[in-house]
């Protein structure tokens, strides 16, 4: 059992970008543990994708190709990758922590009597073996988690934890792997992906965004941040719980399930800064956080912070903005 195997993700021939970050993590982990890195991509008719991977510094590229892998199913992917892992016998299998990986990787790890160490943000090497860092309590604390047992180990990598531009080019040998799959072992029938409705609000065009989180406490308080957005000439956005509760429409949600924005200024008001929110806004040029908890993870990405009660700070801010604008 040796080598790091990175499982890439594609849909309809397009890569999930997090895969490249994970591949970079895999190369680094392999280098630091004195192993080689290989990768695998699963699907139907994925020759071109495998060819792209063959230009990276890797030992091997496994093209896991099968008609039953054309549309993603947990059963199909788990069965195919189980067979590949038994054959390739890596010591560690890495995945990008995508929604799809959440859907099947825990199942796959279970087949090996292992646990997926999920959503990791880094690693260190201890006695030749990796120890992974991951977040607890939505980013308020971190933990180091050490895989145990006979292996192979399984871990998934958080968005943004590694940089795709650190990926090393090179060349790798492509190996076709045809798993043994039958239609009757795939129990779920996936239908075509869809979007709920055309987005009436395009937050991506906004220069300034005032975004509100659960710190606002109730629907009746929303006008407090609306005032601020108006004063600044900003678009109003929100974290997920605000949209879940129907306090603002779904189309104003920022984050992994909502929109990804990169305005000049993003003002996060009463938002804790969970990773699923951060991925949607950390590309903003300037981030301002207003939060009563000085330990809130949002301050990790903020350029300017006000630690205080939003119900005092926001009205004061409205006053000052109006004054400055004259």
């Amino acid at each position, binding site marked *: 059992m040796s080598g790091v195997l990175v499982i890439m993700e594609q849909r309809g021939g397009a890569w999930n970008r997090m895969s490249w970050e994970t591949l970079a993590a895999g190369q680094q982990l392999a280098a630091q543990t004195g192993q080689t890195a290989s990768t695998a991509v699963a699907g139907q008719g994925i020759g071109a994708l495998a060819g792209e991977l063959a230009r990276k510094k890797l030992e091997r590229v496994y093209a896991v190709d099968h008609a039953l892998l054309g549309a993603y199913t947990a059963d199909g992917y788990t069965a195919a990758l189980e067979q590949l892992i038994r054959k390739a016998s890596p010591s560690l299998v890495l995945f990008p922590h995508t929604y799809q990986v959440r859907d099947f990787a825990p199942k796959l790890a279970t087949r090996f009597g292992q646990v997926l160490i999920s959503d990791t943000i880094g690693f260190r090497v201890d006695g030749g073996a990796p120890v992974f860092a991951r977040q607890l309590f939505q980013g308020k604390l971190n933990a180091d988690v*050490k895989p145990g047992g006979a292996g192979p180990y399984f871990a998934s990598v958080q968005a943004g934890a590694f940089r795709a531009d650190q990926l090393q080019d090179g060349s790798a040998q492509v190996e076709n792997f045809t798993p043994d799959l039958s239609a009757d072992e795939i129990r779920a029938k996936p239908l075509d992906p869809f979007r709920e409705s055309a987005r009436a609000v395009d937050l991506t065009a906004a220069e300034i965004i005032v975004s509100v989180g659960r710190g606002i406490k109730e629907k009746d308080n929303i006008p407090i941040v609306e005032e601020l957005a108006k004063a600044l000439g900003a678009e109003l956005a929100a974290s997920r719980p605000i949209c879940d509760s129907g306090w603002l429409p779904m189309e104003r949600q920022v984050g992994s399930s909502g929109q990804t924005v990169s305005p000049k200024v993003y003002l996060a008001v009463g938002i804790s800064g969970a990773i699923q929110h951060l991925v949607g806004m950390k590309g903003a040029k300037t981030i301002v956080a207003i939060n009563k908890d000085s330990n809130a993870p949002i301050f990790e990405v*903020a350029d300017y912070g006000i630690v205080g*009660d939003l119900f005092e700070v926001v009205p004061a801010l409205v006053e000052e903005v109006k004054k400055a604008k004259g």
Partner: protein
Amino acid sequence: MKIIVSIKQVPVRDSQLRIDASGHWIQENDLSFEINEPDAYALEEGLQLKEKHGGEVIALCLGPARASQTIREALAKGADRAIHIEEENLTSFDTLGIAKLLAKAAESEKPDLILTGLQSDDLGSGQTGVVMAEILGLPSATIIMAVETAGSGIRVKRELEDGWFQNVEMPLPAVLTIQSGINKLRYATLMGIKKAKTKEIKRLRPAELGVTAAPAAIIERVYLPQRTKQTQILEGSAKEAAAKLVEKLKFEVRVI
């Protein structure tokens, strides 16, 4: 439809967390606890499915004695009965051990559907439901935003990234992990709270289920995240801090 909803008790949101003396977990003695948020949505979904299709909702909870408060609340909201696997030292189990315990307890009930929240607010591993399904040999689907019956099976709406969704049809029995916001949570009524006192809670111990802790992944250390970014904190009263921020927005960021 016989539905098992697996629920977990976690520290209330916005708790001030302190690392315990061992450095392996947090100090729990001064915290308050509540149902894990996605689990509350899973429970609500179970109750709504029962109201539509008849059947029974069983709340299943693995946790220390304090978790009985959360179980009572689930019963007060309308769960018919509960199973409490009592274990004080949860950190000695990893996700696989926890899923084995829950699966063992669920198995003998022969449910049509098992629901859990998609992840816990404390550990956030996001896999208990999927691993339970694998142990029980059942199909599963995750991050679910709608559940309806379709023939002898169900059709569920999976959330994908960037505002995309996908419907998936699957046979029963099945395991689903539920996303927050799938429905509107109810409050327990006074009547519900009264009734809950008479409802059955079956208590089990891990040893009775034949599962021992043999973790494949161990938390070595818990610590405060290191800040890498230098946030400029604007100090002073609300008015002072606001004035400073406007200065920055005007002269440095240049958006005012």
